[in-house]
């Protein structure tokens, strides 16, 4: 079966995931269409991060299925490189390569993994650095950059692989309020360009503004979901109301 753009680009069906005896995901299902921005919110330990880590195969699952562009992720004959070209991921702790400059961080995967021409990649990497508003920081090492700057390099690094879907795992959780904004602006730009984005976030204002669809998870299940307007103003489930009541 070949994938076409009218089918979900990421399809998660009844996913179960346990760490030992601890069941973290208890039958989670959600679909993401191409160009959609979805935000997954919920209390810590509700399985949000685990869920998006399962999408690019960093975690395995015990039941259900996850497909990306029609390709099953959790199958022994998975072509990991093909999957990871399609799916970019940005982490809470940036996880840049500390021994490489910002520009080298962005260039490394296309050059080493895809074996693309170095000059072409460099031109693209410089354009990406500009896009994340870090012109002039190309030769800085991660240790010389602020958290917000590092996180934007990490976004550029992911984009260098030309992914179809971007996963953001609490990417502003380690930043101070001022730098949070610069990272969110970058993500907003991306979303505006039509990049499919799946975000785990605690930034409710941002979720409301950018997301097409919000999912609220608690204790391994999706409690409630909907477009931001209805979700934030007309949440029906008491658990959702309680959560939103505490943070809004």
């Amino acid at each position, binding site marked *: 079966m070949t994938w076409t753009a009218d089918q979900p680009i990421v399809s998660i069906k009844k996913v179960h995931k346990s760490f030992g005896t601890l069941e973290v995901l208890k039958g989670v299902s959600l679909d993401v269409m191409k160009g959609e921005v979805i935000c997954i919110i919920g209390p810590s330990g509700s399985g949000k991060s685990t869920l998006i880590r399962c999408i690019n195969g960093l975690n395995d699952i015990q039941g259900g299925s996850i497909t990306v562009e029609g390709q099953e992720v959790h199958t022994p004959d998975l072509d990991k*490189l093909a999957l990871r070209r399609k799916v970019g991921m940005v982490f809470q702790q940036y*996880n*840049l*390569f*500390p*021994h490489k400059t910002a520009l080298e961080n962005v260039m490394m*995967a296309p050059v080493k993994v895809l074996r693309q021409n170095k000059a072409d990649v460099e031109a693209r990497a410089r354009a990406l650095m500009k896009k994340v508003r870090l012109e002039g920081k190309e030769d800085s090492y991660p*240790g*010389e950059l602020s958290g917000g700057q590092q996180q934007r390099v990490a976004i550029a690094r*992911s984009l260098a692989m030309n992914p179809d879907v971007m996963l953001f795992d609490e990417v502003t959780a380690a930043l101070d309020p001022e730098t949070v904004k610069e990272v969110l602006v970058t993500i907003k730009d991306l979303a505006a360009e039509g990049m499919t984005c799946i975000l785990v976030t605690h930034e409710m204002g941002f979720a409301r503004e950018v997301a097409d669809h919000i999912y609220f998870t608690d204790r391994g299940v999706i409690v409630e979901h909907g477009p931001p307007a209805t979700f934030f103003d007309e949440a029906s489930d008491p658990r959702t109301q309680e959560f939103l009541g505490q943070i809004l």
Partner: protein
Amino acid sequence: MEDFFRELAADYPRWNFIWMYEDRQQGKVLAGLWMTIKLSVLCLIFSVVIGLVGAWMQGARSAVTRAIVQGYIQFFRNTPPLVQLLFFYFALGQFTPVVAGEDGWTVEPIISNVGWAVISLSFFAGAFNVEIFRAGIEAVPESTVEASESLGFNRLQTYLYVVLPLAFRVCLPALNNNLVNLVKTTTQAYAIAVPELLYHSVSIWNDYPSAQYPTMLMLFVTYILLVGILVFGMSRWERSMKILGYGT
């Protein structure tokens, strides 16, 4: 200069610096020094390669591979290097094929005593290097490895481009120590008649007992210089690789 040492030997019979004024003895010292340098450099290179490969194999999925590496480390780390040298040369040396010598009459083993010394000492120091590199590898954050995997790097690429460069910086001080020990341990190759510096020195003071003290003095000074050069080079390298915000 030569006259000074000749007179010194005449005035003080125990202080005969014979290799300062007699060409034949000087030739022995230089030949020994050259052999020591060759032996050290070869063993340094091979032991580091063994360390890198061993540390890579320690992370293998196959339990058999890991057990082999563990067995290797235990054997070479827990037995005296001198016994290893003797075992390699006398026991294993018996089973290696022989080739015709230069004169066409005699036969020579395909691996000479120098060859066995290089093999034995490299494996000896390599066992320590595996453990040293493993410590460095374990210091690389798991999240950095995940970032690399998410960008499509396979296990080998992650090891070569991300884990090793970072691990190396962490383990250089320990590696330094082990390599210093290795240079000094090359003197034990004397036991299987490898014509290195100690071998020639002993032969000099056997022929000229009056040269014993000066030759021992020369041994100390030479090793201090050799190790000094190594340590100087390694610490400069260590400084040049220092990254802001990473490791020490």
